[in-house]
């Protein structure tokens, strides 16, 4: 339960991170909040030779409202997201992440890069059509969150890439509902309802390897259908896998109910 040895670099700038990761040639890892990486190292599921600590890079923890959206620096701790008032959906979602001692260290960039299928921030990012700005060997680029998530714990980030900020559009209306076995546990199902540019998006976490849009349910709502019908459509259109924490039919039922609750928050009964 102790990490294998590694070289430690305390980076002072994003450029330095990209340089060190490049030199490590696939054997380096960024260390942000450490709330997902350090357990992985302790269990020796990964043994990178270099850890690049990004915690002391200045200017990466800003939360900035920009027109119609809020820009969140990669190093923003979950606890700061809970406190901010610019993006109420983000604040609500962050409240559901783990416990105080996890939220005080864990970061937005780390959560998006880790891409846990049950994590809150990736669902919100996909749900509001967020864009992620990434620094890499050939400069900065911006990609849609939905394109970033490829699978469970799998993203389109290259070895030498670092997420620097995420731009979360502000929904005109939103709802958030989550079901977990115990307070602070990873979610069994998360449902995010967000009205972006006039259309209502329904996005689910925990039911597939990546955040999943409930498109049949969205169509029902767009056609003026009830939340109950949307919930039923959700349960039908997803294909959750069973595990220790819940059977597939149970997850379908919970997903439908979470969609119903999130829709109720935007006044759709």
């Amino acid at each position, binding site marked *: 339960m*102790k990490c294998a040895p590694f070289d430690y670099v305390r980076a002072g700038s994003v450029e330095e991170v990209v340089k060190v990761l490049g030199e490590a040639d696939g054997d380096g890892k960024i260390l942000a909040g450490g709330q997902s990486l350090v357990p992985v190292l302790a269990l020796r599921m990964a043994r990178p030779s270099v850890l690049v*600590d990004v915690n002391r890079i200045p200017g990466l923890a800003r939360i900035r409202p920009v027109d119609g959206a809020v820009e969140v620096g990669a190093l923003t701790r979950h606890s700061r997201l809970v406190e901010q008032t610019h993006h109420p959906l983000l604040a609500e979602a962050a409240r559901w992440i783990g416990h*105080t001692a996890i939220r005080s260290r864990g970061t937005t960039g780390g959560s998006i890069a880790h891409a846990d299928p049950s994590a809150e921030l990736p669902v919100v990012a996909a749900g509001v059509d967020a864009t992620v700005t990434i620094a890499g060997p050939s400069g900065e680029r911006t990609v849609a969150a939905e394109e970033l998530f490829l699978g469970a714990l799998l993203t389109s980030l290259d070895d030498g890439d670092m997420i620097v900020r995420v731009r979360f559009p502000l929904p005109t209306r939103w709802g958030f509902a989550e079901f977990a076995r115990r307070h602070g546990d990873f979610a069994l199902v998360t449902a995010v309802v967000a009205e972006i540019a006039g259309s209502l998006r329904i996005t689910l976490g925990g039911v597939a390897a990546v955040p999943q849009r409930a498109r049949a349910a969205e169509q029902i709502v767009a056609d003026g259908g009830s939340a109950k019908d949307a919930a039923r459509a959700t349960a039908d259109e997803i294909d959750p896998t069973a595990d220790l924490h819940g059977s597939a039919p149970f997850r379908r039922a919970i997903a439908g109910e979470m969609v119903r609750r999130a829709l109720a928050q935007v006044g759709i009964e």
Partner: protein
Amino acid sequence: MNISLSVNGERTQIDVEPRRTLADALREDCGLTGTHLGCEHGVCGACTVLVDGEPARACLMFAVQADGSSVTTVEGLEGTDGELHPLQEAFVAHHGLQCGFCTPGMLISALHLLDTEPDADRDKIREELSGNICRCTGYQGIVDAVQAAQGALAEPVTTPEASDE
């Protein structure tokens, strides 16, 4: 690597390997064995300490990351005269512990809660302590103790080093 940190108000210099966790550094290099290690991967809460006033899992931080920080461990709770902190007194009085393994993490988490939310109700106390696992007490006594300490601490709690500075 040589690092310098303030532990319970005392400047400390230690030489650690980068992979040394803060928890191991506190226990092995600083001789402060009050910080307990249960799971060593973030889930049990036994190793919870305050780093610059915010609760953190000491098993999920490397000591080198705490360079220049101030850390509060359970040893920092007692007064200079060795008197127990009101929270500790309440844990004793209300059966807040049996084997005591989870207690340091419980105390630190509760300390932070009472510091930031002195009027937290029972539900909030339970929510806040849900990140700390206890295999003995059934939690009832722990929550009772935190509520009793709220009464005893009419003044907002400050961490020992904050009041030293």
